[in-house]
């Protein structure tokens, strides 16, 4: 079964705008991760946020986690054409036998 689901499935914005992607999950987690995948490439880790953290920043990226709502958001500020990629959240269920489960991803297009 799928643990995390990203929303929206696809997002198209103009360069310079902010992009927000959301991830919802079903069970309790230890941590949640966000990854980026450029077309034809492997996934690249962006941020890991633990269940006892509410917000984390890395450069133009801001991740929030609301464990009461079982949701997370990834905000990319001042987007660039190079941010065009698919973004995945990955969660570890507390009872998943050490398994990290990836959501279906959000496809982001940043138009120059």
């Amino acid at each position, binding site marked *: 079964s799928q643990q995390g689901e990203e929303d929206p499935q696809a997002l198209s914005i103009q360069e310079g705008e902010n992009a927000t992607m959301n991830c919802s999950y079903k069970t309790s987690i230890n941590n949640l*991760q966000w990854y980026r995948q450029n077309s034809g490439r*492997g*996934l690249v880790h962006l941020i*890991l946020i633990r269940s006892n953290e509410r917000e984390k920043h890395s450069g133009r990226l801001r991740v929030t986690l609301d464990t009461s709502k079982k949701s997370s958001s990834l905000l990319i500020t001042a987007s660039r054409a190079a941010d065009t990629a698919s973004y995945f959240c990955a969660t*570890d269920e507390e009872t998943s*036998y*050490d*398994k990290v489960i*990836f959501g279906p*991803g959000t496809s982001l297009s940043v138009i120059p």
Partner: protein
Amino acid sequence: DTAVSQTPKYLVTQMGNDKSIKCEQNLGHDTMYWYKQDSKKFLKIMFSYNNKELIINETVPNRFSPKSPDKAHLNLHINSLELGDSAVYFCASSQVLRGEQFFGPGTRLTVL
């Protein structure tokens, strides 16, 4: 230096053949993974090894057999290839279970 490498990058073969994909990581990580990404970009874990021991074995047909000769290598052998095996296969590694994963560039397998 490539952290996680896979060979080959592309693999085109006929139904019924047997093929192998190799993966190597030079990060000194203890845990390695195989994922399958389908045409809709959904990423599904297949296997996970920790210190050369199999710890995750998802409901994958037994035509798929992973082999870990040492901590730095995790190869995937597929017998009797079927059309539905066509996908991109990613190898990944992490220092700890449920931690940040480093992905290889992927192997695009096409079964004709």
